[in-house]
């Protein structure tokens, strides 16, 4: 008797599932978290957030123990480095405190707000990325605290990332080390500005510059360890002055028309417990004194000239 064989039914089910999944993928890509799928995700986050918070409190020691099993040697090495750095930094802190206080007083006298004067919300990190292909964290505050998608997030060392989505009771932050992250930066000393993009293959950010836009002297002056901050350029999602990272390597590309600057982010996710969400978005007023100026010339680098490429060690 002709009919729908078992194999035929199974093939029909498979085709139906595949078509449905492809439709969902397409809709999600088009709506970009603004459609019903994004709204459903925010509701799901809101439902699971209390469980995630409780699990974080209970299972963090277990996670730390597991990390110790696999990363013990690296942790001990890192501990020694941090202890030495801490002793060095303590010696600098006393002089730095006085300088900061003097600078803050000067800025207040001239009417220039500090980053601290931007409205913000403190939040705690309650969970890491739920998946394996994203570098995100989940915070314990969201839309009820005025947090919205796109807000910058900073930590003790500098830029952490930006808010991806917010719901009542929590929010998800895209970290500066995620492969899809980008930020307009400037090298503080040399006043070189440009868009830095994170790399999926590594934790570094890459700033590619056209050699026609910078002088040879500026490039020669770049050294490993130079500070990199947000530049707050026109339309940037981040206000100026937020530390982003340090220069790790400078390389003139074989084409001789571009220079690649690799930036090591200051972000240390493992030790990140509390962050500050800046209630600020692109277009909000920023005092002119916080907007950096750029001094570039159009002198090209002559072919055959050498570009300083400091030796690097894996970090």
């Amino acid at each position: 008797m002709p009919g729908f064989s078992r194999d035929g039914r199974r093939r029909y089910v498979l085709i139906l599932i595949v078509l449905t999944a492809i439709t969902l993928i397409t809709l999600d890509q088009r709506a970009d978290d603004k459609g019903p799928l994004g709204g459903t995700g925010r509701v799901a986050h809101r439902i699971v957030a209390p469980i995630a918070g409780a699990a974080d409190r209970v299972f963090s020691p277990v996670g730390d123990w597991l990390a110790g099993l696999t990363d013990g040697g690296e942790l001990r090495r890192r501990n020694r480095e941090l202890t030495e750095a801490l002793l060095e930094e303590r010696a600098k802190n006393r002089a730095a405190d006085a300088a900061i206080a003097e600078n803050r007083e000067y800025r207040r006298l001239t009417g220039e707000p500090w980053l601290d004067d931007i409205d913000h919300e403190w939040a705690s990190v309650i969970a890491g990325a739920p998946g394996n292909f994203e570098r995100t964290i989940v915070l314990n505050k969201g839309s009820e605290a005025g947090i919205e998608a796109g807000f910058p997030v900073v930590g003790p060392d500098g830029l952490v990332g930006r808010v991806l989505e917010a719901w009542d009771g929590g929010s998800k932050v895209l970290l500066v080390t995620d492969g899809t992250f980008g930020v307009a930066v400037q090298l503080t000393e040399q006043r070189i500005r440009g868009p830095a993009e994170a790399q999926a293959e590594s934790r570094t950010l890459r700033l590619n510059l056209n050699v026609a836009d910078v002088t040879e002297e500026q490039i020669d002056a770049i050294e490993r360890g130079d500070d990199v901050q947000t530049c707050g350029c026109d339309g940037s999602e981040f206000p100026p002055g937020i530390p982003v990272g340090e220069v790790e390597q400078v390389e003139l590309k074989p084409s001789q028309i571009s220079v690649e600057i690799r930036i090591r982010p200051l972000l240390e996710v493992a030790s990140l417990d509390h962050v500050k969400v800046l209630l600020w978005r692109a277009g909000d007023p920023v005092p002119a004194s916080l907007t950096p100026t750029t001094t570039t010339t159009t002198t090209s680098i002559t072919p055959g000239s050498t570009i300083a490429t400091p030796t690097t060690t894996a970090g």
Partner: protein
Amino acid sequence: MRFFGPRLVPLAVTIVITQVALFPQLRILGVVPDLGLVAAVAVAYRLGAEPGAWFGFAVGLGYDLFLHTPTGLSALAYALCAYLVGSLERGLLRRGRWLPSFLGLAGGFVGGSIFLIVGVLAGVTDLGTVRAVSIETRVALYDALVAPAVFALVNVVLRDEQPAWRFRDD
């Protein structure tokens, strides 16, 4: 086909909540396992390709709601992998304590490969890197580690159901 919803829906919800709330704290070598994928493979092995595919689609879709990758990507990968296992289960050995780990490892590789390939086709370029392949390899190993527990859980939930491989008269 019998309706397994009253048993599998709570199982799917439990799997998703455990995946997103608990396992980010239990990373090994920097990765979390694909609990939903392993559970879908277990359901497919127990009940057959069709229930496995539906279960994989549902639990994958629930997981996708919490991810930055496109919604539907995990659903598709889990469903296809479970369907494949359910279609091939007649050729598998029935006994052996190693079978859940083997299916978890194989399912992790197959499901992970589908996830990466479809993700690249959908425009997620981060999934087409050497790092992504390294991640999926570690995930598959973690899947093999958790598979015995997941298979045992699925067997408990479906304890009254005869395994699909016992019905040979198609």
